[in-house]
């Protein structure tokens, strides 16, 4: 038992730092510092740099394009990218459908999709939630009926509606949970389909969230024709892929490295914010909230490290990852609460709706610029990926045997 990095790990860390310093697109730093929203090409700019280096998918097996790093190296990687405030990569291809495809897909599916995920050529979205099925994912009603086409090949005809589909407006491909056997019980009779978002019959409609963002969408599927070879794993066994993916999603969701970076950001803001003749960071109660956050974040970090150690010694991400999701999102939300509180009076102005996209002037400190929208937006984290109530149900059942 030992927290020290080996000489190899220290060298690796230096290599990573140098790479980021030399290759991270500088203009992204400016955008982040000015509180601007990231757009598709911003995410892709960094994605392509990493792909060129071969570092785009550290968690993947080497045979599919992974880096072969140890758990410690992966930890160092996420630490260093957060420390350097690098833009977060979109998870839908790299962390979600990619692992499903290399775990459950056919050789043809692997050959077709994995390289394009790695290269960033395909932008993916996730068709899971439906208006009637939020936390109760298995109650989904989107239907896929199998039929033989005029060309003699097998197809599905998909009808239904998905919602909360993040970034679907940019997506080339989507992975969808659909019901292939309507007679089967809830979790049975579901299949996992890969659907080309340009297929006729797909309509994407924006949902505008409280902060004014267009992140999520409704996706309507009307007689959408999908070749059977785009189904991953067995027909009616899509729930296996879904569960696998949900557990994967929960691990990444802890977001320790990003939260560490955000704690530093809040401290800097509190240092520069006046509070009755002193800095806000000197206010004992504001300082205490930061200290408590740091304590809770350390607890999350070392719990994640223990989980990773368990995984690298053979156990896959288990239901314990629900803990990481719950505590990780609580911390992310508390950070936005602190940012809003630090902004004080200047938390109220809202620039987005002065006129679409009119960011041409702002008032108050830059740090206050988007604190309220971000606070509102981040309420989603305790809802998505299985709400925090659902995560507690999972722990109760799977870990505690209740």
């Amino acid at each position, binding site marked *: 038992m030992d927290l020290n990095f080996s000489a190899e790990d220290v060298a690796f860390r230096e290599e990573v730092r140098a790479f980021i310093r030399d290759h991270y697109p500088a203009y992204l730093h400016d955008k982040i510092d000015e509180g601007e929203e990231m757009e598709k090409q911003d995410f892709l700019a960094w994605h392509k740099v990493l792909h060129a280096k071969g570092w785009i998918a550290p968690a993947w097996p080497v045979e599919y394009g992974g880096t072969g790093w140890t758990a410690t190296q992966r930890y160092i990687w996420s630490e260093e990218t957060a420390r350097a405030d690098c833009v977060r990569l979109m998870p839908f291809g790299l962390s979600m459908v990619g692992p499903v495809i290399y775990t459950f897909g056919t050789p043809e599916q692997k050959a077709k999709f994995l390289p394009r995920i790695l290269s960033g050529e395909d932008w993916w979205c996730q068709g899971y*939630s439906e208006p*009637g*099925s*939020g*936390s*109760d994912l298995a*109650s989904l009603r989107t239907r896929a009926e199998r039929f033989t086409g005029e060309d003699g090949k097998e197809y599905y005809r998909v009808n239904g509606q998905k*919602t*909360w589909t993040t970034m679907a407006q940019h997506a080339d491909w989507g992975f969808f949970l659909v019901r292939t056997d309507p007679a089967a019980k809830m979790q049975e009779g579901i299949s996992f389909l890969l659907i080309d978002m340009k297929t006729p019959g797909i309509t994407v409609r924006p*949902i*505008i*969230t*409280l902060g*004014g963002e267009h992140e*999520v969408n409704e996706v309507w599927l009307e007689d959408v024709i999908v070749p059977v070879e785009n189904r991953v794993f067995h027909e009616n066994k899509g729930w296996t892929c879904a569960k696998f993916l949900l557990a994967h999603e929960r691990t990444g969701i802890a977001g320790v490295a990003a939260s560490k970076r955000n704690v530093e950001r809040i401290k800097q803001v509190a240092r520069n*914010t*006046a*509070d*009755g*003749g002193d800095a*806000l960071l000197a*206010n004992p*109660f*504001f300082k205490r909230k930061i200290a408590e956050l740091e304590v809770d974040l350390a607890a999350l970090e070392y719990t994640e490290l223990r989980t990773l150690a368990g995984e690298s010694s053979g156990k896959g991400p288990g239901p314990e990852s629900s803990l990481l999701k719950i505590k990780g999102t609580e911390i992310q939300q508390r950070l936005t*609460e602190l940012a*809003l*509180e630090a902004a*004080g*009076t*200047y*938390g*109220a*102005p*809202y*620039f987005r*709706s*002065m*006129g679409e996209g009119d960011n041409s*002037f702002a*008032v*108050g400190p830059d740090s206050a610029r988007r604190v*309220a*929208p971000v*606070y*509102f*937006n981040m*309420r*989603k984290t*305790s*809802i*998505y990926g299985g*709400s*925090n*109530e659902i995560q*507690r149900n999972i722990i109760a059942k799977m870990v505690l045997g209740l």
Partner: protein
Amino acid sequence: MDFNFTEEQTMLRDMLSRYLADTYDFDTRQKVVREGKGWNPAVWKAFAEELGILGASFSEAHGGLGGGAIENMVLMEEMGRAIVLEPYLSTVVIGGGALKHVGGAVADAVIPGIIAGTTRIAFAAYEPQGRFYLNDLTTTLKGGMLNGQKAVVESAAHATHLLVTARTGGAQRDAGGIALLLIPADAPGITRRDYLTVHGTSASEVYFENVAVGAEHVLRADALPLIEQIVDEATAAVCAEACGVLKVLHAQTLDYAKQRKQFGKAIGDFQVIQHRLVDMFMEVEQAVSMTMMATLKLDTPERSAAASMAKAKVGKAAKFVGQNAVQIHGGIGITQELAVGHYFKRATLIENLFGSVDFHLSRYEGIALAA
């Protein structure tokens, strides 16, 4: 002791409540927000002429109905229930409140216009560096000239008058040397940058550059005690608004929980959701109690302690009820589509209005808990 409303107060509540139910539904409100002016002048006119509520808290001598803080509480709660945009708080509670305390010719001159709906007042007190501290002022009034900047002045864009705090002497955070001014909003040397708030109202940065201020504009020369008093009154009123906001948040969430089905039953059948709704209910009830206490103590020596206690409790309730209303609604709660998200936004802004929970707890400690 008596916790009952008079018949007149009940009638006042019912009248505004009916009016808002009939004309101020969510879609109509959102249309006004999207238009981007931050208020609807026609509603203000109706408040003044059709309902006559703008005079509720003024004396009959000024043309009002003879009410006071309890009437403001009643009206503000109803406005919270409809997340009303119009500037009752700044014009009647704060501006009107200041004039009532000052009295004399200026009160006689200005109050009738407030009641008639033609005079609207914005409260230009907080400054960019000053956070929630009313004494932390760099705006100066020297040699009859006003210079400085005020931060996030609600409804300045449609105000006829500005109620301004300015330093006439002393250092930046001294208690002495602070004057309270009432000046025309269009006086030469005043410029504004207007923007919308998260709530959908309009607010402004207000800049003073050599604005000429005569003696007739000075409501009070050594004014910090008066400023504290009118902000305590405003704090009680915003607590009442919060009660309206939170009651709706709770009611809508309770409704939703009874209807929304997951895993084959209403989510309101899950015990964890039930207890959450109970905890929200208890927060709302206690917010109501504290608002009454603060309102009823406004004319007692306990005024400031009570206002800060109430705001601390209401601020916590606003966060707890708002966040959980969204959480129980799930994804739909954070879209622009449902009213619940907009009530949540208002509740969130109220948390920091006139000072955060921590600010008011510290203020309470300073008054009541010296070591």
